[in-house]
């Protein structure tokens, strides 16, 4: 079960470490910065955490 966040930046394609670190090629993937509110992450108010995530780590949700 994932957490719902909002894409705040798109950074085009970057070398995908999941394959590159295993010698399986650079395999560039789209990279996004996703903003998660502290309510969603930790059930606490007042802040947000923005994390860079490659597209394969993301699942789309209905808005």
């Amino acid at each position, binding site marked *: 079960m994932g957490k719902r966040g909002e894409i705040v930046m798109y950074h085009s394609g*970057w070398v995908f470490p999941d394959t590159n670190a295993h010698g399986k090629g650079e395999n560039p993937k789209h990279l996004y910065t996703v903003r998660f509110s502290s309510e969603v992450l930790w059930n*606490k108010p007042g*802040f947000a*955490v*923005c*994390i860079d995530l490659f597209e394969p780590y993301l699942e789309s949700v209905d808005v």
Partner: protein
Amino acid sequence: MSEESPQAIRAEALESILIEKGLLTAKAVDDVIALYSERVGPLNGARLVARAWVDPQFKKQLLTDATSIVESLGFEGGQVEKLVVVENTDKVHNAVVCTLCSCYPWAVLGLPPKWYKDPAYRSRIVMEPRQVLAEMGVGLGSNVEIQVWDSSAEIRYMVLPVRPPGTQNLNEEQLAELVTRDSMIGVEVLVGVEVPGEAS
């Protein structure tokens, strides 16, 4: 070059051994580094900040495409794959961390402080940033939202701090001198100049 080069590992091992033997503290090493080099790297970041404070057009560019600005200025001493500058305001306070290792924008901020790699900072800043910042001397009102940027992939983040009060009469160069490394990581709020107008 990677931080994990054999020589980097040997240096890290040496420091751990000396600390364990009580011959040295990490802080003593930090202090020396600060004395000899702290102003060198952060000066690049400070110049960007000061210019953004006085030049709205530059600020706009810095906030939308900092990478090309850094490339065009040809800063040396470290790679910036892609640099993103995030702006602090009265309502939003940004802070930067790398929860997984210690990604850090060398080119604009110079050497990272030792605590930046500390697991406690890395884990707590994303879970209780208000407390962590308060412990570091940044007291934020509950109306200020905190945004923590986790430098976890190829993107490096730098904070554009709020221009301190009482600095209307300072020029770009004087402003740059006020900008500290920690303010560009987002763990310090710059304080105003005590006697505005007295600066020559």
